[in-house]
């Protein structure tokens, strides 16, 4: 490999960090308000829901799968927990109940994927519509206003840290530990690299697929609750298109759509922070809100392109290794 190729490889490998710095510096120059402690805390709180969602997504992507249903899971979880609390069920009863709903969605996805051998894209596209429809049916397409107690959880603090950040840290640490330090975590990478080989090596492929979709569903439910505690209401568009943000965050953080590559810490965390920083920065410098999707779309395009370039250069490097 020449020095130039090495530099490109390095740039591709750390593309997210580079992009993140570029975004921070650019918005910092455009507005003095952007790089203040208050705003940075704000970005962290705002990004907590997306990061948790993206952590679950990372598990699925690592097995070369995809879960398009997470936004809909968020919506269903939001609607049901809202209804339950409005009816008068204590919040501490509602929370475990809706976490189970997240797990159920994961179970359904996993069942169709590994039992009936339908590709994840199609299965989760179906549950994406089913979830959205269920939510709209239960909520009668009306927004649900949550009681004050919900918002209080969102603004409470633990050890001086805002609650959403505490939950984010917990999920982040557990997720990272599972992926990097347990047999299950390492087998996730093996399955993502080559399912047939993994089966041959005796890795319990089915169990691993089941578990990653369960994790993804659970994370979607947690993510939903964290977002609700900040918003205080469930609108009919709650969670809408969040699946794409989550995939974008994970891939931006270096997780490959081809499976087997990526991590949560620092990867997915930085990816999610990057997306949230862009949104936050755009608001601060007062860009026309209709432009947001254009910019987000451009960033997603960039990410996918970088991932594809990275994949290509890795393949090329491998190819030259077996040169005659």
């Amino acid at each position, binding site marked *: 490999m020449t020095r130039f190729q090495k530099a490109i490889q390095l740039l591709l490998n750390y593309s997210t960090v580079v992009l993140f710095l570029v975004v921070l510096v650019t918005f910092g120059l455009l507005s003095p308000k952007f790089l203040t402690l208050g705003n940075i805390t704000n970005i962290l709180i705002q990004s907590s829901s997306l990061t948790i969602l993206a952590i679950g997504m990372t598990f699925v992507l690592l097995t070369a799968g995809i879960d398009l249903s997470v936004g809909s899971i968020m919506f269903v979880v939001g609607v049901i927990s809202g209804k339950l609390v409005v009816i008068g069920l204590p919040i501490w009863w509602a929370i475990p109940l809706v976490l189970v709903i997240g797990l159920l969605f994961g179970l359904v996805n996993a069942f169709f994927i590994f039992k009936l051998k339908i590709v994840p894209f199609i299965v989760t596209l179906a549950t994406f519509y089913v979830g959205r429809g269920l939510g709209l049916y239960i909520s009668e397409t009306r927004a649900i206003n949550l009681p004050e107690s919900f918002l209080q959880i969102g603004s409470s603090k633990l050890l001086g840290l805002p609650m959403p950040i505490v939950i984010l840290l917990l999920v982040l640490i557990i997720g990272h530990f599972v992926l990097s330090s347990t047999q299950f975590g390492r087998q996730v*990478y093996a399955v993502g690299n080559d399912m047939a*080989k993994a089966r041959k*090596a005796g890795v319990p492929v089915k169990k691993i697929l089941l578990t990653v979709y369960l994790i993804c569903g659970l994370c979607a439910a947690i993510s939903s609750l964290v977002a609700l505690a900040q918003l205080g209401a469930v609108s009919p568009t709650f969670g809408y298109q969040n699946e794409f943000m989550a995939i974008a965050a994970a891939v931006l953080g270096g997780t490959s759509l081809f499976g087997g590559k990526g991590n949560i810490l620092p990867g997915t965390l930085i990816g999610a922070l990057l997306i949230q920083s862009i949104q936050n920065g755009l608001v601060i410098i007062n860009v026309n809100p209709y432009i947001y999707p254009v910019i987000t779309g451009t960033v997603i395009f960039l990410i996918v392109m970088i991932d594809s370039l990275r994949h290509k250069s890795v393949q090329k490097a*491998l190819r030259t290794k077996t040169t005659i």
Partner: protein
Amino acid sequence: MLLQLKNIKKSFGKVEVLKGITFSLDEGMILGLIGENGAGKSTMMNLLGGIFPPTAGEMFLNGETYLPNSPIAAQSKGVAFIHQELNLFPNLSIAENLFINQFPKKRFFGVSRIDKKTINVKAKELLGQVGLTMDPNKKVEELSPAPRQLVEIAKALGANPKIIIFDEPTTSLSHHEAKKLFELIKKLKAQGIAMIYISHNLDDVLKLVDSVAILRDGELVRMDEKKSFDIQTMVKEMVGREMLEFFPGRMKKIGKKVLEVENLTAKGFIKDVTFHIKKQEVVGFYGLVGAGRSEMVRVLYGLDRFDSGSIVWKGELIDKTNPVLSIQRGIAFLTEDRIEEGLLTRMNIQKNAQLAALGHFTKGLLHRINRFEAKEKVKEKVYATKTKYENLTEQLVSTLSGGNQQKIVLAKWLLTDPELLILDEPTKGIDIGAKREIYGLINNLVENGSSVLMISSELEELMGLCDRIIVMSKGKITASFDKSQFERNTILEVALHKQTAIL
């Protein structure tokens, strides 16, 4: 007696691949297993490795019945299998690959986690046994083929095997690396581990093993101590039949050059390949797996790009190739892997057979397909190939036997009326009857004015069919033989024997 096979039979559908194999293996013994492609070597090893069970017969390991139902079961009984295609995860570290299913763990506040220290120590120990000194935390993707192979062996050793099966372990190794591997194999032998060594490289087999077993058409034709064999006798036993009667003759009237290839180079795959093919000529390409033959024809057909050199097709310099252009030019390509590349296995026979020639059956501005014509033409061709089938439009190709599937792929290309038909291992895994019919079809095509470029690992097949045989090794053409010069041993020698000397 460590391992014993008694009258082992294996059938896939109606085809009997193993017809009653009986042999035994002692501790610390190396058995060389040789035979042509399709002789049943891999089937036999897959039985031992737990990939699938035998149809009949008994296997004993250390006197106990041995019937593994998975590779893991085989491994835990002490039978390890090093496949030609290594089963490693390049995205994980060496240590993680070694312990993917039994990571040493430790508990920390009741939470079980991977014990990284123990892994490192154990991994170093295992790597030491195969003579590797590298850091076990290194990712496998950073390793070149030779150390990867050693990691795979180390992985096998981790399960304390009694028997190790090697399937073509040297194909991706250099001469020096292969020598080191042989030293390791001898060391393992001294530890009492028995090994089965499968290879097409007969020199290696003679150097390494204690006994040789020769499989032919699913039968063990001879098993004896090494000293009673030399290359000639091994080759003779492998082939075992007179070819003259087996290959139908054809009328010869070779014309002028249709394809001229000069200094064709695709970096990393082929280098300075120069040859030509004349009208109504059959040119065979022989060489070991990985010699660059398939890669070369993929470039010719336009599936892969080339870096330099020139291709002249019927007097015209071709600067751009892709499959669409190739089909328009009259070049057809029957790929080696009919399931993965040659067929749409979930579609019916008709749809598969008409696919490449679909343009011939269209008419009008909108290129509407004339289904009636397509059906008639396909029927005609499928009849000509003597394919056995039930229903053209209802039956999925996946329900056909291997030989009949291959005939459908062949029919697909014959329907395009190719001027040059490229065949990559056209008779791989096909029974003898179907083989002969395919030879007849090839001859027919050539007599009607087409040319054929044929890759095969069965030398006898090339000698029986071709007007010329070109030998490739490590991406280069190393020799060319005209029909009058065909001599099995000379060609084999160039391909197998000298392949390391060329380096």
